[in-house]
């Protein structure tokens, strides 16, 4: 498994007066979750899109992104967004197998078998032939998680994937995601301090000066229970963030 290194990275949108961020350094250790916490509009999504190769090259991009195994990053990442992005015209099974469909044009029986297995791991058995509009929000995001797992990439980029869910579904999906993605190199972006503290192996706060500030984490293993220690961490983190608002 490979770690990921971002050195002196900066991003300046073509029509913007100032860069989104500049001189940014970040190390994503292999097989662990790195979380970035930040207010909306701070540029954390831009960083994720940069890694995913989704920033149009007409914008000014600098810096270096490298993997420790020397292989290129593109085509080895899976991307999970706040919206589930399930295609409404495909069945659940076809949505899960979307990568095979889009990269090779067909879905093999083995791939379908694996997709069924993944769905049953996520407690989604029996809905393979349903369409996304027949599912609840929590189920849809679990199908999106299955689709991400099905891509079998070493790197997973997640952009507030659970923020549109209600509290109970969010809690459930955090547990599930931490469980099934524990052997991947994950970059997880959120604006929710509690979510970040539950899931992170490394946690950074993207502050108003566009710098990544490391944050002390509770000692327990992820996914962490919301206990006294996590509560105390959350309290001090909120105070630290609060000092920069207004």
């Amino acid at each position: 498994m490979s770690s990921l290194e971002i050195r002196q990275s900066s991003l300046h949108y073509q029509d913007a007066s100032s860069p989104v961020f500049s001189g940014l350094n970040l190390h994503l250790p292999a097989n662990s979750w790195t979380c970035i916490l930040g207010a909306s509009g701070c540029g954390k999504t831009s960083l994720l899109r940069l890694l995913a190769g989704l920033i149009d090259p007409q914008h000014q991009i600098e810096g270096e992104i490298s993997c420790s195994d020397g292989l290129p990053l593109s085509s080895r990442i899976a991307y999970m967004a706040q919206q589930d992005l399930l295609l409404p015209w495909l069945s659940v099974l076809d949505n899960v197998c979307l990568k095979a469909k889009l990269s090779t044009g067909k879905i093999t029986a083995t791939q379908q078998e694996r997709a069924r297995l993944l769905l049953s791991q996520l407690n989604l058995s029996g809905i393979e032939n349903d369409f996304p509009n027949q599912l609840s929000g929590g189920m849809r995001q679990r199908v999106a998680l299955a689709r991400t797992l099905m891509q079998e990439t070493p790197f997973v980029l997640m952009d507030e994937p659970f923020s549109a869910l209600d509290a109970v579904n969010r809690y459930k999906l955090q547990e599930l995601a931490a469980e099934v993605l524990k052997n991947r190199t994950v970059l997880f972006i959120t604006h929710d301090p509690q979510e970040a503290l539950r899931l992170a192996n490394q946690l950074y706060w993207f502050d108003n000066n566009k710098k990544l500030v490391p944050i002390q984490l509770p000692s327990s293993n992820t996914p962490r229970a919301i206990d006294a220690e996590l509560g105390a961490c959350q309290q001090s983190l909120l105070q630290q963030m609060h000092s920069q608002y207004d």
Partner: protein
Amino acid sequence: MTNYNHPDKHSRYAHLWRLSVTVLVLLGIWHLIVVIFEMPPFILPPPLLVFEKLLANYSLLFDHALITLSEIVLGLILGICMGLLFALQMLLFKPVRRWLLPVLIASQAIPVFALAPILMLWFGYGMTSKVVMAALIIFFPITTTCFDGLRHTPSGYLDLAQTMGANRWRQLWSIRLPAALPTLASGIRVAVVVAPIGAVVGEWVGSAGGLGYLMLQSNARMQIADMFAALLLLAVFSIALYYLTDFLLKRFIPWHREQASR
């Protein structure tokens, strides 16, 4: 869990019930106007007389209706294919878009009906000129809705496809085209409503068959009730075609509601 795809039967029957009541009331008003204002039958024939003619000339009317209907359907097929092709070209080749889009918009300034005599000259008095006429007037709504739909694919879908390594063609075929279908469907609904206009106008300008031809013939012979019978049949066919299309589009593109909320 919500299931959008099956409107319950009760509401469908209620819909039919309301429709038949509306039709009956309209026929009643028509009859009353004839009675109260003592309309002579060569100005406004009473509905019963029209139905009488409809039944008496059933086979003649039906043969001509079939001609008009085939012109409409063929025109729809031709126009939709042309519109799709045009929209795809504009999407895929930027220079083509820059040159074609102004031409397309300018072409709308020409009243298509004014072209009817020219079409008669080029394609003759047969069915071809009417098919081309119908295709021409639906070409614009189809092209613009299709192009709009193809251009406004939800960006999240395209991001996802890109991170999955989909090439341009797969993105077009598997993401852009299906995502454009709900928008295209509204273009097709408009097209189904206006295509009969093209066909009938074509028949008026010069033809040897069809409901439009029949109406002109009856008018010339002062057989106004026959004219109304043809008109009634045309309306029924057009409405039936619209509902059939609407039903098929809803059946095969059931995701239109969902995407509208994005």
